[in-house]
């Protein structure tokens, strides 16, 4: 205990000497006005490593002062109740002029800190310090409160998907509209069979950590099953080793499901290179030499989309593409026979399987869109009301609730 007090005194006097020394170092009366009302508080809903600081700007820090008088604020942090170690005794950070808050994110959980702040003038002179009144500790919380509203949205959206999945599993029938690109897939494989030429399937150029690639592999497994049925050859060059692994599993299983395990050739699903354009060089070379009758692109594509689509077009292949990369959609739309636009890529496997659970998830997606549209409409109307009747409090309150509490904005 005594030891602790000694440390307190030591730290305190150290602070005192240090600040006095600083104050003495420059002629009195030259320094700028200090900031005041420095308050420190635990940063809410975090892992206990941040403390929020707020203060009132120095009297010399005003946008009207030209030239500017204050250059920055320096905040010094003292660790109070732990043995002196070299990294934690005193730490300083600077924030620019005009800023009256800072979140110190380099705190240790539960350690006690004291802060002081000074204003630094443009000429380098320093104001007298202002300090926090007591000690502040960063506390570790269990739930990130800043993400509450998002948690609710997450539960609603996922809940909608699960709800509709369960409902369709229970036998409730549902209707989904036609997507031309998907109907055309079977035809394309059929045509390849007739012409005795291979089908080319590319699952994008990203790895398995992208959901669009997972969706692409799901579509691959259906196309492969059709190909196995029709006895068409399907070739899957990949740009990632993990995708190759997954695609091999998917195609092997598809051949098994079609009872054609004997016809499965693992050599047709192979790795080329991770480099985007080297991969494309290989694919275009393959296309002009082997002249596939059908080309499928499903996954994430970047600039190569147009090279693929144009080359495929020049060899006369039927081309069906789908990507979640909005920037590449125009090229697929211009160059391919059918295109799955954005969300349709993710809906494709549900369409192709026609399994009730999968179709249920589509319904869930639709419900999500209705929700989005409803929030949008309500939000816009509220905002319009606020603009038209700036004096009445009602719409403003509601809008604030919607934007900050529900959508987690500022």
């Amino acid at each position: 205990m005594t030891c602790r007090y000694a440390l307190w005194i030591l730290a305190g006097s150290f602070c005192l000497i240090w600040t006095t020394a600083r104050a003495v170092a420059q002629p009195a009366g030259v320094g700028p006005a200090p900031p005041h009302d420095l308050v420190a508080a635990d940063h809410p809903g975090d892992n206990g490593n941040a403390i929020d600081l707020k203060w009132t700007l120095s009297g010399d820090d005003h946008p009207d002062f030209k030239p500017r008088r204050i250059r920055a604020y320096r905040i010094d942090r003292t660790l109070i109740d732990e043995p002196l170690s070299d990294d934690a005794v005193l730490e300083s950070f600077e924030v620019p002029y005009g800023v009256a808050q800072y979140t110190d994110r380099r705190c240790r959980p539960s350690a006690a800190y004291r802060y002081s702040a000074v204003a630094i003038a443009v000429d380098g002179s320093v104001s007298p310090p202002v300090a926090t009144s007591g000690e502040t500790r960063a506390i570790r919380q269990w739930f990130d409160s800043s993400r509450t509203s998002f948690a609710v949205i997450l539960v609603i959206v996922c809940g909608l998907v699960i709800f509709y999945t369960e409902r369709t599993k229970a036998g409730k029938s549902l209707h989904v509209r036609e997507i031309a690109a998907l109907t055309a897939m079977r035809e394309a494989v059929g045509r390849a069979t007739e012409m005795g030429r291979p089908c080319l399937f590319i699952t994008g150029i990203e790895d398995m950590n992208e959901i669009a690639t997972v969706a692409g592999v799901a579509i691959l497994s259906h196309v492969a099953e059709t190909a196995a049925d029709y006895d068409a050859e399907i070739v899957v060059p990949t740009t990632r080793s993990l995708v190759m692994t997954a695609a091999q599993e998917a195609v092997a299983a598809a051949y098994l499901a079609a009872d054609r395990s004997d016809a499965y050739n693992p050599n047709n699903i192979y790795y080329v290179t991770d480099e985007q354009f080297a991969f494309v060089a290989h694919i275009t070379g393959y296309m002009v030499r082997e002249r596939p009758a059908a080309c499928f692109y499903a996954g994430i594509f970047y600039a190569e989309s147009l090279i693929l689509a144009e080359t495929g077009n020049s060899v006369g292949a039927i081309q069906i593409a789908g990507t979640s990369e909005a920037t590449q959609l125009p090229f697929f739309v211009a160059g391919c026979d059918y295109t799955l636009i954005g969300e349709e890529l993710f809906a494709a496997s549900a369409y192709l399987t026609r399994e009730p659970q999968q179709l249920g998830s589509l319904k869930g997606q639709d419900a999500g869109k209705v929700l989005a549209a409803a929030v949008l409409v309500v939000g816009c109307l509220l905002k319009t009301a606020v603009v038209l009747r700036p004096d009445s409090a009602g719409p403003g309150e509601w809008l604030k609730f919607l934007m900050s509490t529900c959508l987690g904005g500022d």
Partner: protein
Amino acid sequence: MGWLRRLDRRWIFLSMLLAVAIPQLTQARVPEKPTPLVMAVFDKIESLPDGSLVLISFDYGPSAQGELAPMATALMRHCCLKRHKLVLMTLWPDGKPLVERAINQVLVDEFADFGFKYGVDYVNLGYKPGKEVVIKTIANSFRTEFPTDDGDRKLDDLPLTADLTSLADMDLLVSISAGFPGLKEWVQYASSPLKIPLAVGATAVQAPQAYPYIPGQLLGILAAIKGAAEYEVALGEVYPKYSEPKMQDGVRRMAPQLWAHLLIIGLIVLGNIAAFSERFERPRP
């Protein structure tokens, strides 16, 4: 008009070659005028107090160099002129040599008179794998991802980075981006949560994706080679030395651009003439 419908696409290829090669060989130039989105970036760099901390992330590989290198150079030149401190990094594995090249070209060679010192005026953090995770991490702490710089020197030993804790210490973030990870990730994980101004240079493909973020989450944008050209012009207006043709890579490349655009517009028109002539010559049954 039958020939037009049966036109071998190699003639189109040839005309594209000529449209770009001829203006290049004759070194034609077309004037440019900076647009507001470019000026927003220019004014920001110009108005930051001298010696501010600017982080430039080279989020592109060699394949996008043609579009992005001129703006990287122009932005770096501007920062050098304002004596801003530069922290350079890349999120793309093949971007690493590009950062080194830019340093050699601009900081070491071109600004040799300014005597910029490594570790004092600029630091090259190099490449770290991890894509968007790197941004998320350095938003809280630089040292978790970058305990050392590219040359394995400890950040604590370099005067410029010794006090650097996180991205929040930066006065301006710049991402020169050709895709993922790039501008979108910088918006999502750095500029939005930390509220630090972010300027981006983007390839033409990326640019439309950036518009939804302006002006809330994005300061401004240099879109493709035109953005670079406009920036060079803006720079040349304030610092006359940079209005010399050899300092204006982007402007120089706008002449082939103009002719190629006109060619493409011409091709669209021709294509439609071909389509209409077909309808005309073969009346519907």
